[in-house]
């Protein structure tokens, strides 16, 4: 692993910053320099903050004066450009000039600033957080491949070391898919754990805010800073926020890890299937008991998430639709937003009824389990121009395949984290998804950390 500060996790940087051995100014200058050198190629940022260096100088002054705000103090963090920010305009990935958003901090960004983090810039997303490609952002492991989406800019920036961490949003997998394809950690917490006010909505009951980081420990640090009540988000719950780092380093001895053998297995690239089976074996070897189970009702999930996501997105964009602005959207997003009109009211409510069934199914599964392990995506990063891939002996649309293993946990709202668990023959990362009970992010982090520490995947970096 490189000794450059931006190649080190926040959990390693924080003691250096606190002790004054590393300056926030030097860290932010290094991030800005790396963005200058690499982002013309990666295209992960849409804006770089003009005030980041001033903010770093202020952080340095505060730390010198003994006003330490915690482990994120002075750390450069990138923000997906669907989170409102007071100092940079938000575009949510759209080029439509008539669509604008207020210049104020979203709840999550305000939480990060209060924890002392330095907002280094805004990252690119698939327009309005639809889609899993994020054009024209490139995957740092292979510039001819997609980074995933919709938080593709955030994942590419973190893996390339242009920021120590980033924020993403996840409606059907948009944190975990790019995390899997770029080899970062990506955490979608329980629905209601992190307030979403000031994030441009995509689908109110499916949208989640969360971090993309180098390590599981860093995800724990950001989750703590981001969690807590948000008066502007009716779905955000005012629950006790634990010190998630306390879960790290705990043994897996006696834990029961479930493997849902239907839906999540059988239609994955061979290299992904092999890596996950190896990882499951590794979890057993470090103390976990593995139990197979099935959730047959998952076969209805795709219709349910389509009904909710399409109708919600169309409702949100209704004014733009009626004003004719959607004609200026990217062709794929325009079609999706228009198509939502074809989903009927009964379809939508049937989907919400089905959600309760699926939540109950997983509730019952968790009576005998502590966590569930699946692949994050059935495939590794695909070529920019690919629309289909060969999976399990047949062609499949990359868009259909890419979110198949992630959207069930948007329907159920369960916490889910993606961590790297290997690389394919082309050197592309493979992701493993770990899910836990509602509001038990600590368990997902515990299992993820135990696996992470038993391998060196997280130390690997792409050559830029």
């Amino acid at each position: 692993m490189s000794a450059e500060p931006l190649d080190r996790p926040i959990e390693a940087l924080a003691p250096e910053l606190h002790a004054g051995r590393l300056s926030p100014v030097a860290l932010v200058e290094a991030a800005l320099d790396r963005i200058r050198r690499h982002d013309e190629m990666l295209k992960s940022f849409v804006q770089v903050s003009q005030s980041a260096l001033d903010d770093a100088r202020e952080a340095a002054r505060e730390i010198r004066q003994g006003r330490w705000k915690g482990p994120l103090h002075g750390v450069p963090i990138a923000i997906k450009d669907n989170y409102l920010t007071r100092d940079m305009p938000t575009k949510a990935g759209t080029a439509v000039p008539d669509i604008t958003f207020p210049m104020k901090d979203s709840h999550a960004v305000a939480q990060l600033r209060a924890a002392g983090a330095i907002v280094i810039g805004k990252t690119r997303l698939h327009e309005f957080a639809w889609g899993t490609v994020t054009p024209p952002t490139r995957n740092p492991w292979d510039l001819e491949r997609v980074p995933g989406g919709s938080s593709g800019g955030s994942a590419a920036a973190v893996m390339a070391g242009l920021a120590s961490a980033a924020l993403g949003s996840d409606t059907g997998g948009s944190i975990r898919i790019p995390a899997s394809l770029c080899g970062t950690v990506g955490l979608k917490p329980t629905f209601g754990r992190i307030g979403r006010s000031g994030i441009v909505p995509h689908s109110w009951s499916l949208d989640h805010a969360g971090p993309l980081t180098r390590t599981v420990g860093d995800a724990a640090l950001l989750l703590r800073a981001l969690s807590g009540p948000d008066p502007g988000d009716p779905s955000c719950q005012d629950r006790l926020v634990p010190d998630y780092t306390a879960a790290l380093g705990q043994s897996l001895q006696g834990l029961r890890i479930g493997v849902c053998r239907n839906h999540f297995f059988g239609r994955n690239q061979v290299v992904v299937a092999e890596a996950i089976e190896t990882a499951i074996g590794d979890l057993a070897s470090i103390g976990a008991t593995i139990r197979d189970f099935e959730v047959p009702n998952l076969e209805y999930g795709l219709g349910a998430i389509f009904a909710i996501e399409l109708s919600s997105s169309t409702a949100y964009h209704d004014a733009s639709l009626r004003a004719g602005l959607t004609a200026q959207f990217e062709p794929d997003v325009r079609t999706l937003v228009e198509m939502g009109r074809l989903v009927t009211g009964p379809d939508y409510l049937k989907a919400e009824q089905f959600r309760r069934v699926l939540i109950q199914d997983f509730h019952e599964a968790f009576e005998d389990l502590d966590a569930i392990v699946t692949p994050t995506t059935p495939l590794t990063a695909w070529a920019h121009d690919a629309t289909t891939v060969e999976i399990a002996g047949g062609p499949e649309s990359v868009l259909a395949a890419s979110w198949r293993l992630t959207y069930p946990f948007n329907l159920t709202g369960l916490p889910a984290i993606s961590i790297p668990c290997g690389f394919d023959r082309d050197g592309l990362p493979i992701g493993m998804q770990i899910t836990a009970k509602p509001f038990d992010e600590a368990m997902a982090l515990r299992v993820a950390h135990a696996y992470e520490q038993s391998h060196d995947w997280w130390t690997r970096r792409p050559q830029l």
Partner: protein
Amino acid sequence: MTAPKAGASLNPYRDVLGLEVTPERLEENLAAFSDILVELRKLRNLNLTDVHPAVVFDPTGGTCDEETER
């Protein structure tokens, strides 16, 4: 000669569903929707009569304070 029924003049996409697009766009939308419809049909065939939707109505709008709760 009988008068045409009022419903006969309604366009199912434009008037009923509110999808105001050109005929060409409508064709594109319907073609793209056909795969989704396969999944929606599975959902429509489920009997969920006795299941309450996951979305729960809250008459307080999440704004209830201690005084109004007394």
